[in-house]
């Protein structure tokens, strides 16, 4: 399974943080990969619509996440606008952010940045 996490928006446009993050589950520690797989299933990711959450009138500076997951020949993208109210999608997003952070501190090649 390959996952791409792309951020857009926020109180500033920061070019370095705007690049998509790629997670290849095969490169992650088995426990993390397993947790992500379970979370993708729990969130019924492949059945989700392309957009989750709509901006309220006058809202500004919210982050928009685009999650793209490839698995077994299928590929699906979901755009999430924060705050992400759906608990299972939020859990998946949190997990990926956590992996991103641990990877940032670990030696390269666990996550392609």
């Amino acid at each position: 399974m390959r996952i791409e996490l792309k951020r857009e928006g926020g109180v500033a446009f920061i070019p370095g943080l705007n690049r998509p993050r790629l997670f290849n589950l095969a490169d992650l520690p088995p426990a993390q990969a397993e947790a992500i797989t379970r979370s993708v299933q729990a969130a019924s990711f492949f059945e989700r619509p392309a957009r989750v959450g709509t901006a309220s009138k006058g809202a500004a500076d919210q982050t928009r996440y685009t999650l793209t997951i490839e698995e077994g020949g299928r590929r699906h993208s979901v755009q999430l606008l924060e705050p992400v109210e759906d608990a299972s999608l939020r859990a998946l997003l949190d997990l990926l952010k956590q992996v991103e952070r641990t990877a940032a501190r670990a030696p390269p090649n666990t996550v392609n940045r």
Partner: protein
Amino acid sequence: MFHPRGHHRHSLHCILPPYLLRSVAQNGTGPQRAAALHTAAVDSTFRSLRFASTQTAQRAPSRIISGMMAESQCHRSIYDLQGQETFPGTLARSEGQGATGDVAVDEAYDGLGATYDLLWEVYGRNSIDDSGMRLNAHVHYGTNYDNAFWDGQRMVFGDGGGDLFNRFTIAIDIIGHELAHGMTEDEGPLVYFRQAGALNESMSDVFGSLVKQKFLNQTADKADWLIGAGLLADGVQGKALRSMKAPGTAYDDPVLGKDPQPGHMRDFVRTWEDNGGVHINSGIPNRAFFLLATQLGGYAWEKAGHIWYEALRDTRLRPDCGFARFARVTLMAAARLYGEGGAEDTAVRDAWNQVGIPVTREKVSVAFIPPQQGVPASKPSRRPNA
């Protein structure tokens, strides 16, 4: 306190602006009452401008009631989300309560207060909707969350991960920035896309910076004109998120990249990202405001701030307003407030010229700025019937 200049412009909907009513009620003398009445009587340009809009006229009745209230009340509520992302969280501090010792809670409380005070004391505006809207902030959003946002009703602040960003309440101008989004929505609105969106962002930076400058009692030449100073964590190569004085110079870091803001139209960035570059091209009107404020000298929230505030409230500021139209509206606001051909009028023109937007007042009435291509099909949000 009675406004020293006597010709201070204020909300049309007030027969007397709230701060005048308050001060007259408390300290009014005969001459002050007369001056206040005179101010109200001569200030007709703004009335006709605003009543020209049916939307505004519809809103007027409820506003008159709020404007007649002699006391302004700041109503702050700070909620602690305790790392969760579900609202509202726990009420941690409400209006009048003392410091909690939680630095994010207390910074949010003080930042909301400083923003309220700027709007009330300088612009006679009662909260972000000018009708005493309660100010709600939610802190400790998520874990290691690197952002602050306005969701249309409330401000939300993350603690930052500590590796790139500190807590987002650390910068009082960011608090002002988020609240100003609420004010722009109420007065504009300005569609959050392309040039109008960049103006929306710039308006938030302008008033966010003014909140900070007034809080620190800084004149324009003493202010740092940075947005989000203190927000970047130790080790990050940069000083803030943006610089109004020198857009594009706020940071240059291996992880964050380089500040992408232009300060001149020749460097305008065309992009589909960031809602069409709303946080990027805002550098251009930001710098125009900086140039105006430093040219005029003194406190930026006085003349320069009043010109921008009146431009924001001008009914000719359409939701899809581009930079050129906005520049003309500011020029007309300067002439209305301080007279045609005066130093302010000239300074506004010079400021826009220096960022590559030549502007003349005469062109305003005849200019047709076509709507931007590619604006989303959704209609601009409706003016609240508050």
